[in-house]
C-alpha cells in the first residue's frame, strides 16, 4: 500500500468513525419507581385471545369439547385451525358482538352470523405459532397475559379512547367538537415533565378527527389524540405526535421518550392479509428496541383493541367501574419480564396506565385505571436484566436445507466413510506387510552368508 493510500485509508476510517459515533442518550424523563425508564405500548387491530392463543400450550385456551351451535338445529362448529387460510370476518358491529356474548353465556359466535344468513364457521377459526411466529415466540420468552380484556365489546373509537384516557364518554363515537377536556395520560406526563410521544404508522398530519368528521375507520379513530382540539392546536403538544419512523430514529439517536404509545395502520393484523405484516411490524419494533441502548431500561407491551367478532370463551368480567369487553391477546417484552410466564391477572389497557402512573408518580385519570391491576406483577425487578433474544418473524427466504449431525441419515453417511477409510487402511497395510515379508525373506540368505 502506498503512503498516500495508507493516509487516505486512515482518513477515511477516521471519517467513518466520526460520522457514525454514538450520540449521547438524551434525558428522557424523571425518576421512576422501577428500573423501567421507557415504556412503549403498541395497539393492534381486532383479534380475540382464543383466535391467537386458544391453542397456546399452558394458556387458558379452548375448553375441551367446545362447539358453538349454528342455530336452533343440532349442528355445531368446533374451533379449527386457519393454517394457511386467508380468512376474515366482515360486517362486525355492536349488535353482532352482543349476540355472540349472549349475556355472558358466550354461545352465539356462530349463530350471530347465521341469524344474518351468513356462515359463522370462520369466527371459530384460530391461528397458531406458524402464522404468529413473533407473538408466540415473545409469549414463550417473556410474558403472555391470558386474562387481558378490551374495555368495550365493540368499537375502535371507544376502545382507543379508553386506551389513553381510561374513559369513553360517548361510547364508540367522538363527541361533537372532540374530547375537549377529557384528560389523557399524556396530559399527566406533560404536567410532570416526563417525556412522551405518540407514534403513528403512516402518519398523515392532515387527517384529524375534527377535520375528517366521524369516520370511525380513519386515522383519528386509531389515534384518539387527533380528536382533541388542544393536541391539534397547541404546537407543543402536537409536536409529540410523530410518524412511526421517528421511533427508530429516536432509538438510534438516543432520544426515546419515557412513555410512547404506538398506533399501527395497515399492519394492524385486523385483516387476514395483514397478519404477516403485523407480525413483522412487532418483530421490527421489539428487535430494534433489543439492539438499542434502551433494552435494559425499557418495556414494550402490545395488545389488540377488541375481539373483532372472533370466538373467545371467557365472558367479559364485571369490575367496580363497569363491564369490560372481550378477552384480547397481550404480550409484554422487557429485560425484566418474567421468562416464559403466562400472567393470569385480570388486566386491560388501564393496567398499562396504572403501571405508568405508579412508575412515574402520576395521579390516576379515572376510577377505571385507579382500580386496575398494574402490570408490575409481570416483572421480576429483583433479577438482573436479561440479555435480549431477538424475536423471529414470518419467513422471508427459504432456509438452507441442512442435515443435523444427530440425524440418523448423517450417521449412515459417516459410517460409510468410516468403513471405506478402514478398507483403505487395510489395503495399504496389506501391501506394506507383504513387501516387508518379501524383503525379509530376500535378506535372510544374505544375512546367513
Amino acid at each position, binding site marked *: 500500500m502506498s503512503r498516500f493510500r*495508507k493516509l487516505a485509508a486512515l482518513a477515511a476510517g477516521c471519517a467513518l468513525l466520526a460520522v457514525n459515533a454514538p450520540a449521547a442518550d438524551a434525558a428522557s424523563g424523571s425518576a421512576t419507581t422501577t428500573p423501567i425508564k421507557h415504556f412503549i405500548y403498541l395497539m393492534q387491530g381486532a383479534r380475540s385471545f382464543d383466535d391467537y392463543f386458544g391453542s397456546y400450550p399452558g394458556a387458558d385456551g379452548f375448553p375441551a369439547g367446545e362447539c358453538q351451535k349454528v342455530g336452533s338445529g343440532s349442528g355445531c362448529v368446533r374451533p379449527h385451525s386457519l393454517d394457511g387460510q386467508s380468512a376474515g370476518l366482515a360486517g362486525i358491529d355492536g349488535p353482532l358482538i352482543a349476540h355472540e356474548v349472549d349475556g355472558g353465556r358466550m354461545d352465539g359466535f356462530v349463530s350471530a352470523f347465521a341469524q344474518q344468513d351468513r356462515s359463522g364457521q370462520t369466527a371459530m377459526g384460530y391461528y397458531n405459532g406458524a402464522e404468529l411466529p413473533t407473538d408466540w415466540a415473545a409469549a414463550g420468552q417473556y410474558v403472555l397475559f391470558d386474562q387481558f380484556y378490551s374495555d368495550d365489546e365493540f368499537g375502535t373509537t371507544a376502545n382507543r379512547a379508553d386506551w389513553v384516557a381510561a374513559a369513553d364518554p360517548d361510547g364508540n363515537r367522538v363527541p361533537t367538537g372532540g374530547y375537549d377536556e377529557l384528560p389523557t395520560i399524556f396530559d399527566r406526563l406533560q404536567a410532570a415533565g416526563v417525556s412522551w410521544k405518540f407514534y403513528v404508522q403512516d402518519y398523515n398530519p392532515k387527517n384529524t378527527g375534527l377535520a375528517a368528521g366521524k369516520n370511525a375507520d380513519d386515522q383519528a379513530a386509531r389515534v384518539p389524540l387527533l380528536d382533541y382540539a388542544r393536541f391539534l392546536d397547541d404546537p407543543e403538544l402536537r409536536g409529540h405526535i410523530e410518524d412511526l419512523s421517528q421511533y427508530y430514529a429516536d432509538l438510534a439517536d438516543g432520544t426515546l421518550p419515557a412513555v410512547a404509545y404506538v398506533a399501527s395502520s395497515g399492519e394492524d393484523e385486523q385483516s387476514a392479509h395483514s397478519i404477516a405484516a403485523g407480525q413483522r411490524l412487532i418483530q421490527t419494533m421489539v428487535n430494534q428496541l433489543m439492539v438499542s441502548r434502551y*433494552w435494559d431500561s425499557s418495556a414494550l407491551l402490545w395488545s389488540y383493541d377488541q375481539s373483532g367478532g372472533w370466538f373467545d370463551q371467557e365472558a367479559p368480567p364485571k369490575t367496580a367501574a363497569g363491564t369490560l369487553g372481550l378477552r384480547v391477546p397481550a404480550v409484554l417484552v422487557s429485560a425484566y419480564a418474567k421468562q416464559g410466564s403466562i400472567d393470569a391477572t385480570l388486566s386491560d389497557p388501564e393496567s398499562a396506565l396504572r403501571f405508568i402512573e405508579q412508575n412515574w408518580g402520576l395521579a390516576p385519570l379515572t376510577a377505571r385505571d385507579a382500580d386496575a391491576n398494574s402490570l408490575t406483577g409481570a416483572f421480576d425487578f429483583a433479577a438482573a436484566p436479561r440479555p435480549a433474544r431477538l424475536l423471529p418473524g414470518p419467513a422471508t427466504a427459504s432456509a438452507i436445507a441442512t442435515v443435523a449431525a444427530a440425524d440418523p441419515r448423517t450417521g449412515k453417511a459417516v459410517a460409510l466413510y468410516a468403513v471405506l477409510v478402514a478398507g483403505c487402511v487395510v489395503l495399504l497395510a496389506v501391501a506394506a506387510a507383504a513387501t516387508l515379508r518379501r524383503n525379509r525373506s530376500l535378506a535372510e540368505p544374505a544375512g546367513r552368508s
Partner: protein
Amino acid sequence: MTPSTRANWVLRIAEPETHAPVVTTRTAFTRSAAGRLLPPSAVLALAAYLRFRQLTAVGFNSDEAVYTGSAQALAGHRALESMFPIFRAHPILVQLIIAQALRISDTDWSARAVTAGFGVLAVWLTYLLGARLYGRAAGLAAAGLLAVMPYHVLVSRQVLLDGPMTCFGVLSLYCVVRAVDDAPRRWIAAAGAALGLAALSKETAVVLAGGLFVFGVVAATGRLRPRHLPIGLGVFLVVFSAYPLGVKLAGASSTGQNFLLWQLLRRANHPLWFYFTTLPSAIGPAVLLLAALALITQRSRLGWRERLLVCWTVVPALFFTFWPVKGYQYLLPVAPALTVLAAVPIARLWNTRHGVLPRRLERLPLSRGVRGALLPVAAPLLALGVMATLFVPTWQQTSPSTSTAFLAGTGGLPGGRAAGQWIAGHIPEGAQLLGGGPSIANVLEYYGDHPVGALSVSTDPRDRNPVYHPVPNPDLAVRAGEYQYLVWDSFTAARTPYFAAELRRLVDRYHGVAVYTGTVPVSTAIGAAPVPVIIIYEVHP
C-alpha cells in the same frame, strides 16, 4: 532393516530402468543409525516448526470458517449447523477428522493442527518418495524443499482440504512407484485406496487420477502393466463412491447437485494465466529451475520416474489452467512432485563429493584441490541455499500480517476473528447482520454465532454459490427489520467498491451508529496508525 536389505531396495528400483537412477554412494556416517535418522528428523522438525509456529496468530479466513464450521456441525455444535451445513460442496473426510479434534479441544488450534499435521506427514512421504526414486539424498533434499516451501507451508497451516488431499496424493504416488517393481497388484490397489482418500478429502483429486492414468497407459514399466490399472481404478472408484453415496444417504442430494451445476456453469474467477503468475513465487523460482534442469539434462533419456512425476504435475496444471474456477491452493498436490524433480540435480551433485564428476563435466577446469574442497559441500550448500530462498518468504508470510487485504487461500481475514468474537459477546441472540460479501459473512458467522447476509451474493443462481442466500432488496430487508446490523470491511471494500458504497448508503439511510470498530496497525508517514478494517453499525429502519 539391515544394510543389505536397504541395498536391495536401492538396487531394485534400477531394475526396470533404461538408464541408471542417481546412484548413492555411502559413507560410514550415512550407514549409521544417526546418519539414517538425523537428517530426515531434522527436516521433519523444521517442517513441523514452520507449520505449527504461531498457528493461531491470525483468525480463520472464509474457507477455513466454512470447513471448520462444517466440522463443528459434525461435532454436534447445533448453533453452527444451520449456517454451515455438513453436506455442502465437498466430501467430508477432512471435516470428520477435524470434528474429532474439536471434540477433544474446541479451539482454532485443534482444527489447524489437523491440516498442519497432514502437511508434516506429506513432507515425510515426500522424503520416502524421493528416496525411493532417486536415493536418500534426493529424498532428503525434496523433503527439505517442501518443508520450507511457502506454497505448502501456507496452505497446510490453514484449515483447507488441499493439504490433506496433497498428503494422500503423495502416498498414492509412492504406492505407484512401489507397484512398478514390487507386487504390482497389491501396490496399485493401495495406490487406488490412497487416491480415493485424496478424493474423499477433496473431489478435485480426481484430476490426479487422470495423471496416474496417463502415466499407466503411456509409460507403464517394470512389473506394472496396463492390465493392473483397472485394479487401482476400481479401488479408487469404490472408495470415492462414499462421496455421492454419503450425500444421498444423508438426503442432501439436491445441495450437491446444485453445487456441481454452479461449478460447471459459473464464470471464471481468475484469468487463464493465474497459476503462471501467482505460483512461481510461492513454489520458489529456484525449485522450478532445478526441476526444469533435471528434465532438460536428461531430455533424451527420460525414464519412467520422470514421466511419472511429469504426468502428476502437468495433467492437473493443464486442467486447472483451462478450468474456469481457479483457486490459489488447487495445484498444491504438484508441489511434492516438483520438489522431487528439483532434488535430482542436488542428489547428482552430492554424488560428486568424492571428486568424481560426470563424464560431460570432466572437462571443467577444476584443480584436484578445488574439487576436493568444493565438491563435498556443493550439494548441501545448493540445497540449503535454495531452502533459504524459500524460508525467507515463508517466514514473512507466516508472521501476522498488517495488510488490510488478502488473496483467498493465503491467510486470515484481517480483524475477522476479533469482530466475530465481539458479535458473539455483544449482539443479542437472534439478531442478523448484513455484510458486503460472503467472505466476511462466513468468518463473522463462525466466530459470532449469528447469521450474516451478504450484499454481493447474486440473485442469479448461475452466479452464486448455492449455499448462499441473496438479499434481492437490501433496502427493504433493513426497513423490514430483517437485519439489525450492517458490517463494512476493508476486504470487501477493496474487492467490490460498489457493494461497499451500497452498504455505506444503507448505513446513512438507516441511522447507522458504529458500535464496533476493528483496526489493524499500519505504518504511515506519521508512524504506526490504526486503520479500520471492520466496522459494525447498528441500524434502525
